[in-house]
């Protein structure tokens, strides 16, 4: 984020921070929602401040409880669930669950500028 970039002990989350984060997360907030969420997020982050005091130098981060390694399937060609007909049926089922589909694709409103 722009404000305070690079600091290790951030200040209290501001209303502007929340508005910025909401925009990143594709959420539209009303003014009163913005006020409410700012206080609530600050409470949670204040609680997290108790780990500020810990000496964590030299501690390795844990991102996952298991010693994970990549899992590979056998290197044989597959087409969908079983065969091509099944695959088409599966695609049809997936597309049928979409809000809008056209020609075997998900249909969305214009992404860039005006629609052609």
């Amino acid at each position, binding site marked *: 984020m722009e404000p305070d970039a690079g600091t290790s002990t951030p200040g209290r989350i501001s209303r502007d921070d929340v508005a910025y984060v909401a925009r990143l997360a594709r959420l539209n907030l009303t003014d009163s929602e913005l006020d409410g969420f700012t206080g609530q997020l600050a409470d949670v982050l204040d609680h997290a401040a108790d780990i500020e005091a810990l000496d964590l130098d030299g501690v390795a981060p844990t991102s996952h*409880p298991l010693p994970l390694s990549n899992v590979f399937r056998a290197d044989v060609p597959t087409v969908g669930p079983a065969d091509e007909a099944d695959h088409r049926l599966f695609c049809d089922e997936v597309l049928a669950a979409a809000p809008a589909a056209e020609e075997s694709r998900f249909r969305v409103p214009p992404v860039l500028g005006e629609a052609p």
Partner: protein
Amino acid sequence: MSAVSLAGAVRSGERSARSIVEEHLAAVADGEGQIHAFNLVTADAALERADRVDAVVAQGGDPGPLAGVPVALKDNMCTRGVPTTCGSRILDGWRPPYDATVVERLDAAGAVIIGKTNMDEFAMGSSTENSAFGPTLNPCDTTRVPGGSSGGSAAAVAAGFTPLSLGSDTGGSIRQPAALCGVVGVKPTYGAVSRYGLVAFASSLDQIGPFARNVADAALLLEAVAGHDPLDSTSIPASAPDLLGVLDRGVEGLRVGVIEEISGSGPTGLEGFAPDVQSRLAEAAEALAAAGAVVEKASVPSTVFGLSAYYVIAPAEASSNLARFDGVRFGLRVDADNTVEMNAATRTAGFGDEVKRRIMLGTYALSAGYYDAYYGKSQKVRTLIVEDFARAYQSFDLLLSPTAPTTAFPIGEKVDDPMLMYLNDVCTIPSNLAGHPAMSVPFGVGDDGLPVGVQVLAPANGEPSMFRAAAVLEAAAGGSAGVAP
């Protein structure tokens, strides 16, 4: 009747699966109006399935270890062609194109799925008040919450709607509602049960597990759904552990440590534990000692930081996982002039407040400039917790704590104060961060007459000894739990 007896009766031809399913559907019809445990009851499909189970028995076959036993599924497990909502408006109308692995395992074991249970939206909550479809009420006292996020699954079992259900547990979402509703709830070792088809909340923490009215039934269900699944890359490459076979082995010689920091008994620990909950924990420890276990105080110091780390790590993972709900491929779409505005309009209308809070919290914690301060530090705290547990398990086989700091609280009491709500999870979160199994066993009631749960914790893959201790606690508490017959 227990799930173990029901399955036995169906397999031997003594009872029909149809009669069992009809009996439970009647209980649902009778009591669901007061409890709201379900988002969907699949009565017709359940009866058809029961008939197929009965047909197998009639032909001399064995339908499997869960023959004819009703099971309810938390509504974040995909069921092909059957609505799966995650308690959210954003999945409105969505029918998954495939079954979760647990659904296939239940089918292979002869179980009968009777419906999808209510939950906090996307499993974010500790009271089931965050469901878009209204709260579930606690069958022990309908003015109280059932806990959460798997409150519907816990309530369905406690109310006698089903002998078994599955929930998911990211920070306590199986164990805490089990404690508050007076039933058994198990979070297995991370990777013990396939998460294929479980809608992800926080992928490094999520785990599916059973609810039941007694320890043996929970073991029966866990045995049926556990075991390696190539479709989940985090699945442990081992077969399901034998649990029913070891249940009666007792705890003679097992070393059990009561975690001071998360039971309100240590000088440096957390506060806020109700005295009646602490008394039941002390009695549970005595019961294990009386059965031959060596019970002592244990210290797992960094567990006090679990809550802080969790409420950074889980929202961070959630903010990424929930990015997929954008109005393009499934569920709700709110139209707008361009795709970015459509994404935002859809997410704004589709998500409830708690989900929005966590997405924003996670987005903030992962953003440049704050990543190291929040997410990076939390991951290091996670390491401390893993190391502290490892040290404790050099001296102990099992650990003990309350499951939740209090009995079930009144509906509405904490829903407007997220931080107060999060404090419900202080005892359960450390096991998720470490990836260890833990289970809640009902152990008496509090001063208000509501159930108290005791949590048994074990190291990774320690389910067999964890279940042995649970069975001893159950016997000491006076048999199986729940308010239902």
